[in-house]
């Protein structure tokens, strides 16, 4: 989103937030002391205070004296970074309700469509293949239903959730713990780029802010705050995802958890959540029920879709799709079930995969992508 007009107050606020060393708390304090952004700026540029309000005060004073009106927003606009401040219409409405909403959100990409439903999918950065598969599946199913998938673009579950949503070109939002111009983790650079194209990157930190450790819990509060519900896919006993779940609880959002093996340490966190009252999730429908949105229409559309897709396929292709209906199947098993030559089966599998009807999962096994 790029602002055409540069409202004075918004520009001043952005300037203050972007001051080096400025924290949300400090900005809020200054605003409450001086009443408005322009008040803060005036006090700063005068710089004459008996008590130094902050150890960076003198530096800020110098910078404030160089403040040029409209410049902050213009610079952001030239870098194709949008910004929404609290109080604006496009500010995520759920986020307004939380205890300490961010003063402004920096956005790279498109704003989510109005009246969307937001669901967060979070979890371990070092998941098992099971977790990855579940996150992808939920991401896919949610975006198929038009839900906006929100996550943190971290490695592991977060990435898988984004990827699942992107597979169906669904709108997905990555809330970052650093400036939106910084690709972190670096291995997700391409993923962040495709999220930007198909959705947006959001951060409460101005561009250029490095990913510090303390920013991620703060980021988690935004993820929880802007969503109708939070799904924890896989989380160990001490996991950042549990922080997100806690934020969600304290903001009265619905918390969902994907059950896992009781022997898997990576599912200890999610199983703990379920024990303490979180709704267990096995498919997107559980989520819709949990947040009170009826998706029965969606489901019936799904089964129609399946019949329609199968009708379009050749007899052989349909036979293969039916053969892999019951979960994850090796090519070997598929040719056995259909009793066809394996070279034929292999060739048909690739073609079905390109049609988007089946996909390959962990370990070279195939699963069906139509419900």
């Amino acid at each position, binding site marked *: 989103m790029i602002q055409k007009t540069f409202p004075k107050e918004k520009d001043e606020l952005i300037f203050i937030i972007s001051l080096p060393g400025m924290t949300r708390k400090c900005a809020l304090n200054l605003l409450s002391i001086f009443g408005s952004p322009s008040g803060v700026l005036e006090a700063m540029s005068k710089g004459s205070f008996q008590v130094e309000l902050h150890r960076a005060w003198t530096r800020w004073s110098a910078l404030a004296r160089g403040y040029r009106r409209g410049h902050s927003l213009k610079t952001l606009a030239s870098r194709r970074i949008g910004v929404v401040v609290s109080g604006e219409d496009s500010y995520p409405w759920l986020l307004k309700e939380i205890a300490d909403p961010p003063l402004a959100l920096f956005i790279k990409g498109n704003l989510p469509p109005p009246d969307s439903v937001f669901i967060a999918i979070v979890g371990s950065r070092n998941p098992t293949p099971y977790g*990855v598969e579940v996150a992808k599946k939920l991401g896919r199913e949610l975006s198929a239903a038009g839900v906006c998938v929100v996550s943190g673009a971290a490695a592991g579950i977060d990435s898988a959730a984004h990827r699942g949503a992107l597979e169906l070109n669904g709108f997905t939002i990555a809330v970052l713990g650093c400036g939106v111009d910084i690709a972190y983790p670096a291995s997700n650079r391409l993923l962040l780029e495709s999220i930007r194209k198909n959705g947006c990157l959001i951060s409460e930190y101005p561009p250029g802010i490095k990913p510090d450790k303390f920013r991620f819990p703060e980021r988690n509060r935004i993820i929880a705050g802007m969503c109708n519900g939070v799904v924890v896919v896989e989380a160990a006993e001490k996991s950042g995802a549990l922080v997100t779940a806690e934020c969600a609880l304290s903001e009265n959002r619905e918390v969902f958890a994907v059950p896992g093996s009781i022997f898997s340490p990576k599912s200890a966190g999610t199983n703990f959540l379920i024990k303490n009252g979180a709704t267990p999730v096995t498919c997107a429908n559980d989520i819709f029920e949990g947040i009170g949105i009826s998706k029965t229409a969606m489901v019936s559309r799904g089964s129609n879709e399946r019949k329609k897709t199968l009708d379009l396929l050749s007899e052989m292709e349909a036979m293969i799709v039916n053969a892999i209906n019951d979960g994850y199947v090796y090519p070997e098993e598929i040719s056995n079930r259909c009793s066809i030559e394996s070279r034929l089966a292999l060739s048909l599998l690739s073609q079905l995969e390109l049609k988007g009807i089946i996909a390959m999962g962990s370990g070279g096994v195939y699963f069906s992508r139509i419900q």
Partner: protein
Amino acid sequence: MLASCDGATLVGLESQIVRVEVDVMNGIPSFEIVGLPDACVRESRIRVKSAIKNSGFEFPNKRIHVNLAPGDLRKEGASFDFPIALAILEASGQLDYSKPRSFIVAGELSLDGGVREVHGAISIALGAREAGKSFIILPEGNAREAAIVPDLEVYGVSSLCDAVGFLRGSAPLPRVKVDADSILNTDKRIGPDFAEIKGQEHAKRAIEVAAAGGHNLLLIGPPGSGKTMLASRLPSILPPLTLEESLEVTRIHSAAGLIPPGEALVTERPFRSPGCSTTAVGLTGGGQPLPRPGEVSLAHCGVLYLDEITLFNRNALESLRAPLESGSVTIVRSMISVTFPASFSLVASMNPCPCGYLGDVLKDCSCALHAIQKYRSILSGPLFDRIDMHVGVPRLRKEYLRRKSPSEPSSKIRKRVSKARAIQRERLSSEPIYCNAKMSGKMVDRYCTVSSSGESFLADAFDKLGFSARSYHKILKVARTIADLAGSEIIEIEHLAEAVQYRFLDRDDGHAF
């Protein structure tokens, strides 16, 4: 008195004729060997002395000097025992030649005067013929092997006495004769056969494609799924060795001392499976003072199987790059440089993840994603680039193992493979290569004609499945081979679609496998 006799030593696969000069003179009795002998050659003093005495001759109680010329070449091995003994006998007046002096003799002596086999008989024979020698005397066990070389008289002896009798002309020996063609053509194959493997049709098909196009293959599957069993049967479907190939393989195996006594030729394609602790030198060859062929050369014209490739030492794997690229290894030492042929099909196996059970139907994988990525990254890089096909080998359910239906025997598959190879040879007749796997990027563009629907399929596949650029040529090459197996000149969708299946480790998100 002076006397001399010609022996030979191996430098790589080439034999170098070594003139053994002996001087027996008056003085304090001693026995000295010069000419850069290694410990083994120096020890021949003991063997020669006893062998001469125990063969009924007299060991001269004089000062004996032995010189091995050329003096600047390091000599190794026990094969000089025999020429040293003959030269001493001549120098001490116990051997008068009735035969021409133009011959080579090689063999290790035992204390009782018997003669033992040496390494590299066939190379020594080839060297003798090149040098224009009229005959060659070898231990009996080596004689058939050397007799493969045409236009050279070969005599096998079992003891020092036999040789002396033969050279004096008092006890003639039969010339050893061997017909190479008949050895090659009598099929005595009793090696492992694909008919013995139940199920795994998918992997078998992949191996057939790999055999037909000479592609390198990576088998991925949980422990106990039969990766080694499958790989060890690849030689049985490769086209039979030609005489030329067989000679080359025999030379290499002979130099390594792997030819059993009495055998003439290696008639089966070799299958080498070095363990995962093999060092770089073990793979490529080397050693002091003269380099020996390593596993890559021993697998020449056959299959090199690296089981659990991720457990191999990184250096060792990197050392495979040159042979995979050029089909030979060159070992350079300060004094010499030696080239061994090493043109082999690489088959590697690995588990899908550290615990081995990722994607398994019977057991859950307990690995974290990081661990899997780290495990995979061992393979990434230049070696991975030279592997054309990735094949999943799942564990089979018991039902399939119990099934009675017979599997296709190797001989049938081999026929299809040979046919596809013939097609390739004809197509590539103007190029210096003979199979699809060796095609360069330019050749891929020239020889891989894709149908128009195939083109759009390929574009689609790259878009949706996230293949990297390097996969492009590999997919086309493998598709070319699949089309050749099907006898189609144009590469159609179905060929490409199958080829895509053999590249699944390439998909860009890294979570696919």
